[in-house]
């Protein structure tokens, strides 16, 4: 186990808060997303 201490990057301008869909196989399939706007999050409920 480990943790990295990262400096908070202030003022970085290249970050795009675009939703990112991610998927991985595990004992059960799962998905994760971040940077979703409210309507994008709402849309995941179908």
């Amino acid at each position, binding site marked *: *186990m*480990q*943790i*990295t*201490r*990262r*400096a*908070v*990057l*202030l*003022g*970085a301008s*290249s*970050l*795009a*808060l675009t939703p*990112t869909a*991610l998927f*991985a*196989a*595990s*004992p*059960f*399939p*799962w*998905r*994760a*997303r*971040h*940077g*979703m*706007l*409210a309507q*994008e*999050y*709402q849309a*995941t*409920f*179908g």
Partner: protein
Amino acid sequence: MAQGYRLVHVAGYGVNGVAYYAAIWEKRAGPPWQARHGLTGGQYQQTFNQLSQQGYRIRRVSGYFVAGAPYYAAIWEQRSGPPLQARHGLSGAGYQQFFDRMLAQGYRLDWVSGYQLGDDAHYAAIWEQRSGAPFQARHGMTAPDYQQTFNQMSAQQYRLRHVCGYSVLGLPYFAAIWEQRAGPPWEAHHNMTGAQYQQTFDRLVSGKGYRLTDVSGYDAGGQAVYAAIWEQA
């Protein structure tokens, strides 16, 4: 989300006056669930009361501060379980007081979410009256405090079960729960930019077969940063 996936985690966070969400879904069987987001404190309480009457238990709650106001996102599951207590809108002192009271009554902290309300940190949390591995919880930690506590806990074989990063007046803080138990390998990282989060995700998930178990977003200087925990699947 594709059919069969159930929402198991949600974190709301405000950046530059806009609400964003991070979430985890799992494709597995389980009890009926419901989720809400963008709730005011009053709406959250009302929903909590309505769903409780229908046999739903709160599983996750996330408080977040957007454009000067607090909001809540939460997940409920319709199932039985041990006695449960949930509170929101607690000040740091109020949270500590209630935490101590719950501990004395045999409750353990199951979840905590920190967020700005007014000019101060406030907390929403869930306690369950059940036994389990020894646990420790901290809140109001600065990044150096969190790192130091993390190192101390790791030395005592405590695993990080939950971490919530939150921003108050533009400064990052952390609330976390550790459990002293064995388990698969895991990693936790904080203060990751979106790009760093994605890189770490890819390294651990695609590269090592880990799965994401917890993620929270918070504002750092006007951009979203993330704290997250991965565990070997």
